């Protein structure tokens, strides 16, 4: 029998829930058992109380976990009814969260295994990239980062990444040029990949972006991982709604992913 999901249902309390960008919020929850179990790139499935017509949980990656404080920080974009209601949850509000879900990034062991990594994040795909950057930094691994968003007010995480030791080049791109260069973040990423040597590439963001990063990595001969989004119902392997077509067959994003070996993804 395959390994069951490590996910459990945890009660949580909202510590803070505040805007950190245009329609982007940072939610810190207190959930000590969960905070101690997390691996970068994993996700959790959060129940937003209040609308009995909308029943499923909301899958979210995490940006940071503090096992000592027992807290987890999630960044989310308000895109629909559920995230709208989530943004209305106030400190002290409680609900339940199911996690951790799936396999996260295969964070390289140390600087020997991986002298330099490249991280490419777009839009609300940035939180798990920030989480990964922190893990690399702790392991003494150097990394360059390309972040992109439609506009300055939607580009989050740059300050957090810049503050980390090990952070090399940091390229910021916006569609409208309001911050960094007016470009897609895949542009500096492709340049870096053709110029520098990397042992590991990680990407999270819109599918076309990740696909471009995967292609550039393949050309450069670097192992690349991508964190994919799928419509998820359960988050723990029970329903098969979250399928990702890979060269090894259909895989559940909530169990085999959300982080996949990008070279094996057939259908982005």
């Amino acid at each position, binding site marked *: 029998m395959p390994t069951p999901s490590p996910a459990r249902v945890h009660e949580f309390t909202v510590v803070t829930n505040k805007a950190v960008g245009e329609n982007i919020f940072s939610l810190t929850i207190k959930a000590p058992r969960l905070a101690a179990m997390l691996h970068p790139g994993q996700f959790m499935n959060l129940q937003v109380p209040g609308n009995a017509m909308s029943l499923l949980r909301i899958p979210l990656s995490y940006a940071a976990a503090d096992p000592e404080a027992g807290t987890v920080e999630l960044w989310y974009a308000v895109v629909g009814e559920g995230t709208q209601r989530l943004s209305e949850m106030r400190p002290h509000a409680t609900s339940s969260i199911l996690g951790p879900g799936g396999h996260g990034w295969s964070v390289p062991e140390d600087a020997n295994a991986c002298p330099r990594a490249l991280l490419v994040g777009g839009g609300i795909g940035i939180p798990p990239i920030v989480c990964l950057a922190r893990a690399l930094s702790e392991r003494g691994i150097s990394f360059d980062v390309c972040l992109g968003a439609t506009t300055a007010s939607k580009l989050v995480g740059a300050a957090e990444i810049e503050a980390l030791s090990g952070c090399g080049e940091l390229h910021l791109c916006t569609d409208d040029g309001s911050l960094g260069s007016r470009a897609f973040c895949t542009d500096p990423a492709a340049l870096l990949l053709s110029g520098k040597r990397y042992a590991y590439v990680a990407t999270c963001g819109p599918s076309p972006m990740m696909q471009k990063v995967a292609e550039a990595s393949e050309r450069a001969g670097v192992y690349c991982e991508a964190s994919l989004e799928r*419509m998820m119902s359960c988050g723990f392997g*029970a*329903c098969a*709604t*979250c*399928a990702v077509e890979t060269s090894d067959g259909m895989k559940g994003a909530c169990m085999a992913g959300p982080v996949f070996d990008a070279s094996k993804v057939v*259908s982005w």
Partner: protein
Amino acid sequence: MAVNFGGVAMKNPVNTASGTFGFGWQFADLMDVSALGAITTKGCAATPWPGNPAPRMTEVRGGMMNSVGLQNPGVEGFAAEAGPWLKELADTGTRVICQVAGHSTEEYVRALELFVELCPWASGFEINVSCPNLAAGGVACGSTPEGAAEVMRACRAVTERPLFVKMAPVRVPEIARVLEAEGANGLTLINSISGMAIDVETRRSKISRPTGGLSGPLCHPIAVRMVWEAARAVSIPICGVGGIMTGEDAAEFILAGATCVSVGMANLIEPDAATRILSELEAWARRQGVSDITELVGALEC
């Protein structure tokens, strides 16, 4: 709380709906599966099926819609992956019912033969007649009395072990009668209801197929009615499925004539929903002053 579902002796009436409970092991660390009367495993076919492309799911008001397309590793893959765990579960007294999928009568027969051979620990098999019949342009085999009868007759010839049919929510009383006549030991209803959800900005279906199957509370009053119609049409036992979120939802099925019930979508929201629903159902039976829950089967007064 014991019930006999067409030859399957269940310690209580709570079962799980195929496709919402994986192969059972997914719940092993999340709840006490052995507290349930039975579980029904995801439908498997003679050969592996890849299922449909993403997106396979969208939320709708009061439920969800899926187009998983019966992705499964085939009966052999299933038995290898889940067999040992399911055998252990069966040893605890929780019955295991395995669902059988196929695209034609021949495929159902072939899958059932494999199940009978590879799954001695299974208490019974549930034939999902809602799979698309590829020869008939994708219409479900079980959507007409003739089609359902053909599948049932062929499967009945394979085994004397308990055979159940997971019915689509169409033409229920007439198809139920036909299935009883062809020797079904019990009926499970309803399967998800065909629905459609369109993204009006892109003008496309929200899932990768034009239509999908609806689950959740929105199905509940429809499913209760169909169970009631089926229970008046046949004398074989019925398993009620559709939108059960609470013990009271389950109780409605029992009063309408179901011998047992299956929890579906609720498992996905709250992994231990089925055991909570079981205790709520027990509390209801106590309030009704019965020790034998079969006294409440079909006890609706009207």
